[in-house]
């Protein structure tokens, strides 16, 4: 069973998610405090960490950043009530491999954890929309054009995600394998994390949609 660790400052929510996941995953621990979480994750070495975005003491971004410094193999899935672009982009840039909102159904959450555990990326429809928007509106810089633009196929996959389709359905609709869909999404994630365009951050703060 995949080992999972939970970080959320909202204790009721923490307990709820823990109860939901107990059947399918081994929940090795949980914390509602940023510093304690970083220490425990380092010693427990869970496969996947579910982390809230807004928390006192630096929030999810600081948990992800601090843990990845010493344990680069830990995989993070961000879970938040907010899908404001600046939060989403900040978590992904910090190193999270996925971002879902707390309104996600338990089944979908389990799928997302599996996907992140397998090393793939999880994009919510709104995250896919943000990425399309961000990459569409800017001119690639000369340094590394490959990192700064999306291939037509990647854009197509993101559009399907934004339209609410699951990976399996996307594969069917585009006549490609699920593995290929996953590869495209992971590649977009990498571009999102490594692209050095400052615009990405500014773009995210420019548009605030709740």
């Amino acid at each position, binding site marked *: 069973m995949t080992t999972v660790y939970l970080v959320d400052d909202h204790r009721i929510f923490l307990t709820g998610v823990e109860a939901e996941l107990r059947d399918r995953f081994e929940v090795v621990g949980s914390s509602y405090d940023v510093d304690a979480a970083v220490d425990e994750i380092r010693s427990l070495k869970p496969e996947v960490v579910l982390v809230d975005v807004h928390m006192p003491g630096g929030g999810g971004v600081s948990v992800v950043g601090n843990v990845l410094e010493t344990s680069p193999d830990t995989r993070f899935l961000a879970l938040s009530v907010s899908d404001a672009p600046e939060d989403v982009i900040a978590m992904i840039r910090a190193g999270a491999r996925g971002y879902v909102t707390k*309104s996600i*159904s338990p089944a979908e959450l389990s799928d997302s954890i599996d996907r992140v555990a397998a090393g793939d990326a999880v994009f919510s*429809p*709104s995250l*896919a*929309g943000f990425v*399309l*928007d961000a990459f*569409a*509106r800017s001119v690639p810089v000369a340094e590394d054009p490959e990192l700064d633009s999306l291939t037509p196929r990647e854009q197509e996959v993101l*559009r399907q995600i*934004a*339209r*609410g*389709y699951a990976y399996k*359905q996307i594969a069917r609709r585009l006549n490609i394998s699920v593995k290929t869909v996953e590869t495209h999404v992971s590649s977009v994630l990498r571009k999102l994390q490594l692209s050095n365009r400052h615009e990405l951050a500014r773009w995210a703060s420019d548009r*605030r*949609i*709740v």
Partner: protein
Amino acid sequence: MATEQHLTDSDEATTAARSFEWPIKRSVDDRMIAGVAGGIANRHGVRSIYVRAAFVALCLAGGVGGILYLLAALIVPSWTAETEPPPHVASRPQMVGLGFMFLATMLLLQAAGIWFGTMVWPATLVIFGLAIAIDTSGANYEKSLSGITGEGRRSWWLVAAGLAMMVGGLIIVLSSLDQLQALGVVILAVLLALGGFAIVAGPWIWSLIEDLNTERRARIRSEEKADMAAHLHDSVLQTLALIQRSDDPKKMVTLARSQERELRSWLFDERAADTQTLRGGLADAANRVEEAHDVPVSVVVVGESGLAADRQSAIVGAATEAMMNAAKHSGADRVSVFAEASESQVDVFVTDQGKGFDVDAVDADRKGVAESIRGRMQRHGGSAKIDSETGVGTEVHLTISGGSQ
């Protein structure tokens, strides 16, 4: 870094340095007009208020103080906020020396005859009395590094001495004045007395006003908190109570969703969606459908639309109809809306993963699809494409082009 600057400063002054360096620069930190007095005070470790008093007193000597100040303000360079050293701590002999220098200058000016008569000495007394009173009773006393006595404590005997100097000086001034000017003198005396009172009691009154302000702010905060509590009680707590009493999971979810929507719009009302935009229009429609049919509708919009208003409202209207249909008939547990907009074209996809239907078999009489979606799009030069597969779901793809004219 500041001390370093200070050292080179005095070094160069003593060795008559290769490049000329002003021993005194105008202060930035302690500046009333041009920072001349502040600069002198900083260099010699006296408190700037006494330097200012000396300048004012020198002004009585035919305006010499003013001329000196003006010259210094024009010629002497100024520190910058970064380079200004911390105030020098003066020794007592140094301060006595400065005092004598001031007295000598005054005597020299008196001997030269540049003078405003017998009132200068008593006026000087008043000025310094005032300075002491301000200095020792003012709130800035604690901030200064070295007092005239070298200590940072407020001492009442100093205040008293200052007041005594003031009153004594005033008595001399008044008694030496001609009786004809008595009226003017009375006014002056009243003004001086008021001034003295303001100086002595000022800090206390000021702190009273501050306290009042703090109290008012605290009250506003607690009122805001009460408002918030009242709102939460009327909305969130009621809903939570309803959820606890409900045993129908679907009903619970509906309650939670509608409460969440309401709370979000209350918390972020300044960002309320502008329904004139594509984004705002679709979000508003999604909210209405959600409320009417208890099915969550998520909206993702990419880009900004440059469509003419009538076309935009046509596509939003058609999309609303498609959302309604999906929520009402598909049986899906949610509806997704994705819009991609550019200057000249907008695509909207309304997707559900419900039971689907046979598009061709739909009765042409059914106004929903035929009129509200297809007809509306076609009238505005757009098109609607409906894909549905039984058991898989339905996707309505709306396209319209044409920028604003």
